[in-house]
């Protein structure tokens, strides 16, 4: 399926199926570095002694930089590019407590232009704490420019 991937087929086969689960224990120093390099000054992101000390949204996005596609997802021919990130925060994400991130594909769609077709894939990671409370959702948008037929 190097070219002319059928988006509907891909959607039917892969959407909403969990393909990755990963355990996390957020490192305080790394969280602080990300907050500080982002220019953050709010104590809930920069002061470990703050009662609501938590990971900032940018750090949550970084947790989703592992496997983005199911192992049996077909190669589409082009080089995947990072098209963007989104994060929804449902509750503060604590540092130093066990977390689990479960990933599925939330959307697959295409866009056509003069230079050809691009396929966009949204990998969604849902982050839970040890009590299975849903804390945050991150979306990683991949853009694959389909190779023109030879």
């Amino acid at each position, binding site marked *: 399926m190097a070219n002319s991937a059928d988006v509907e087929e891909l959607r039917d086969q892969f959407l909403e199926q969990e393909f990755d689960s990963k355990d996390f224990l957020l490192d305080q*120093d*790394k*969280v602080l*570095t*990300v*907050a500080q*390099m*982002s*220019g*953050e*000054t*709010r104590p809930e*992101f920069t002061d470990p002694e703050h009662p609501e000390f938590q990971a*900032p*949204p*940018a*750090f949550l*996005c*970084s947790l989703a*930089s592992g496997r983005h596609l199911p192992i049996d997802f077909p190669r589409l021919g082009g080089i995947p590019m*990072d*098209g*963007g*990130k*989104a*994060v*929804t*925060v449902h509750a503060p994400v604590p540092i130093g407590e066990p977390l689990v991130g479960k990933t599925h594909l939330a959307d697959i769609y295409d866009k056509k232009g003069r230079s050809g077709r691009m396929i966009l894939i949204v990998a969604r990671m849902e982050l839970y704490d040890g009590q299975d409370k849903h804390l945050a959702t991150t*979306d990683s*948008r991949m853009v694959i420019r389909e190779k023109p037929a030879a």
Partner: protein
Amino acid sequence: MSIQTIADVEFGAELPTFEPDTSLAACGAFANAVGWPSGRFDDHEAARKQGLPGALVPGIMGLGFLTTTIHNWSANARVVNIDTVFRAPMLADTPAIIGAVVTDIDEDEGIVELDMTIKNEADETRVFGTAKVSLPLE
């Protein structure tokens, strides 16, 4: 004007912005903290060898700049959702010019929507996005 509650927000208002640190040291520290390889974000020459125009600001660091803009705007603001599109690379060591404007206000739910951008000195948009922000009702 200090933004404390949803009643303080005006439609179309522009958020005060700040000048983020896009130095090689800052980009490298950020990339290292999130586990990304060095070179691409903290060394122009190494980045060029990878086919890039120079060292880059990590995309999610741009998301961090936007989040900070919101937090600086109001000490009571809580980012519910932020969605960014990486339109083109941001070069390290160059100014990242942030813009943010209020596009919707839900006074019943205490939710503000923002359109946000990061541009370079040539006024070219590198990152754009939207955010939903929660503020106290009273």
